[in-house]
């Protein structure tokens, strides 16, 4: 039995849906993209063209909901099915689009560059706890115009894992899809076996911008999975109550699905988000707050009641360094997300409101994720009798270490953490240098980097990708692409 937490009664889910449908009629949804408004109009929505406001009747949204696939698969570069979005399956990937990285020696947040992103990709590739890569940071030394797809280029050259990504504009989305198509064997093949999923954000409250709506439509038509990232910020960009924010999240997601399915019915789409409460002292958006995790848990329950795949942003912290706060916020929230049965949980590795990344934190968070995944396996009856057989010959002595069953089953029963987690005696700890978690993570990160080997990549495809990237970089004024190390 996979353990699970739920925060909503069926009655509350019904009320959330009901009020979300009400909001979609009054005040309606602001859709700042003409083509999206036309799609909605053709389905019978009432449009206030001057104010770009669309009233979406429940019947139209319900029809769209019927067409959403309840499950789909992401593939690795070799074409193997690796991640299933749907049901209560749980996967983790690092947070995306950080602007800086934590220098492990000086503890400065320095602008991220190519070598930082490559390090992150390698660490993620090496750690089995991460199911997918993410376009984790934007590289500061390359021209801004190519920043979003340059990240994807680096992942494609260094990794086999599926990718969680996103475009920073309507135009660059096409470039990114074309890059992926090189490896999938064309755009059709990519739609058949997608290797990446794209985040698309509505703007709180109740707005689909040209950028967001445009990319929803493009993704739907390309058949490449879209992941909606609705971000109610409770008390600032959405109602202060957790339920009020969930209602807004529901209305934004339902309207997104309606646009998306009208562009192409049956295209895969995910009910995701990155909500946060709004800190009333600092005016910030804490991703590690417990209430943030509660909003995620609640909206995931709404999605599950509709049979739609889920995503959330948890496992991150507001701390500026990898300290106790980082550990407790990241670990607690990752566990809550896992117990909520959310299909993709993004955020590991991140500090400072998703602005800063740290490979060392990734290695620590991997342990929290390992533990959370162990928790999800639940308690299982692995032996015929639960205990009595194992008491044979024990005779009141603590001799279970001598039993064959112990030897056979301990590694199934126990998640085996890496050296990042200290379970040594005080003597052992002292002898190995009195290190704290961060020191141990630094060592482990370096070990992973040393052990990393670049996966074998089809030489022709690699050549095609590199020449595409070089051409685009040149157009943006960069004549030589940065070296990787």
């Amino acid at each position, binding site marked *: 039995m996979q353990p699970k937490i739920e925060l909503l009664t069926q009655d509350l889910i019904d009320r959330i849906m009901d009020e979300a449908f009400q909001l979609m009629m009054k005040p309606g949804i602001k859709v700042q993209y003409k083509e999206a408004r036309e799609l909605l109009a053709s389905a019978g929505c009432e449009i206030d063209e001057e104010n770009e406001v669309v009233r979406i009747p429940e019947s139209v949204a319900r029809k769209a909901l019927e067409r959403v696939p309840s499950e789909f698969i992401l593939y690795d570069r070799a074409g193997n099915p690796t991640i299933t979005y749907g049901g209560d399956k749980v996967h983790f990937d690092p947070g995306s689009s950080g*602007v*800086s990285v934590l220098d492990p020696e000086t503890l400065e947040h320095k*602008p991220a560059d190519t070598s930082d992103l490559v390090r992150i990709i390698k660490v993620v590739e090496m750690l089995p706890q991460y199911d997918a890569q993410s376009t984790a940071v*934007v590289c*500061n030394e390359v021209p*801004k*115009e190519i*920043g*979003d797809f340059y990240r994807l280029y680096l992942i494609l050259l260094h990794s086999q894992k599926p990718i969680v990504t996103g475009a*920073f*504009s309507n135009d660059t989305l096409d470039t990114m899809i074309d890059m992926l198509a090189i490896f999938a064997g064309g755009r059709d093949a990519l739609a058949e076996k997608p290797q990446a999923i794209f985040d698309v954000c509505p*703007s709180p409250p109740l707005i689909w*911008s040209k*950028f967001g709506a445009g990319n929803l439509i493009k993704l739907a038509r390309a058949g490449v999975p879209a992941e909606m990232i609705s971000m109610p*910020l409770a*008390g*600032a*960009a959405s109602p202060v109550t957790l339920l009020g924010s969930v209602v807004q999240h529901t209305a934004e997601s339902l309207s997104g699905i309606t646009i998306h399915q009208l562009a192409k019915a049956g295209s895969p789409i995910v009910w995701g988000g990155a909500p946060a409460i*709004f800190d*009333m*002292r*600092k*005016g910030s*958006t804490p991703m590690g707050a417990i209430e943030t995790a509660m909003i995620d848990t609640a909206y995931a329950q709404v999605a599950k009641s509709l049979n739609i795949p889920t995503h959330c942003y948890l496992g991150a912290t507001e701390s500026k360094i990898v300290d106790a706060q980082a550990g407790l916020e990241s670990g607690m929230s990752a566990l809550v997300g896992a117990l909520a049965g959310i299909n993709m949980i993004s955020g590991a590795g991140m500090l400072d*409101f998703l*602005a800063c990344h740290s490979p060392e934190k990734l290695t620590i968070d991997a342990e929290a994720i390992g533990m959370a995944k162990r928790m999800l396996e639940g308690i299982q009856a692995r032996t015929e009798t639960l205990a009595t057989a194992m008491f044979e010959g024990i005779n009141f002595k603590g001799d279970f270490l001598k039993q064959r069953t112990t030897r056979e089953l301990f590694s199934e029963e126990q998640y085996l953490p890496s050296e990042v987690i200290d379970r040594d005696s005080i003597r052992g700890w002292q002898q190995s240098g009195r290190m704290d978690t961060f020191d141990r993570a630094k060592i482990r990160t370096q070990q992973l980097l040393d052990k990393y080997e670049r996966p074998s990549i089809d030489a022709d495809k690699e050549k095609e990708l590199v020449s595409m990237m070089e051409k685009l970089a040149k157009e943006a004024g960069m004549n030589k692409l940065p070296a990787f190390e």
Partner: protein
Amino acid sequence: MSAELFREMTQSILDGDDEVSVELAKKALSAGIDSLTIITDGYMPGVKEVGDAFACGDAFLPELVMAGEAMKAAVAVLEPTMKASGQARKILGKVVLATVEGDIHEIGKSLVGTMLTSSGFEVYDLGVDVPTADLLAKVEEVDADILGLSALLTTTMIKQKEVIDEIAKRGLKVMVMVGGAPVTEEWVQRIEADGYSEDAVGAVEIAKKLVGAK
């Protein structure tokens, strides 16, 4: 009599009650009290008290924002008489504020606007995704002292540079302060902005420094 009234005004700001603050403004006007005195002795102490409490962590954003709203509502009642008598409320400076073109992140920029307003600046908030040309037109129209530019994306940060270059080209004398998650000290130097801050409290300090207020 007016001392009692001023105390009530201060309280209306502390309570963030714009209905009461407006009522009291009308009452004071009909009692013939001078508009500027009403603002300085009636409402400002309230704004200052909330601002100080916020800075110490004893008051919270909703209180700060609502105090600002109550103040704004009262000033709107008083403004016509002030104008008629040729008086002007003392402001620290005029700030045109916006999120740059291509960027729709709004919350941080608006928070900076709120804090600047409640600290005594006159703020023209142009919203988000604002083209450079519109920004500069507003700067010229109101003769702004400071232009505040918010950018939350590494891809839109370059717009901050574009604006600054354009200001230099046109020879405008407005000072530019910038902010947003990806903005760093290094970037600020590179684009030769006049100031920057990581948060709204710092934004007020920078703005004051730029206009030479203490």
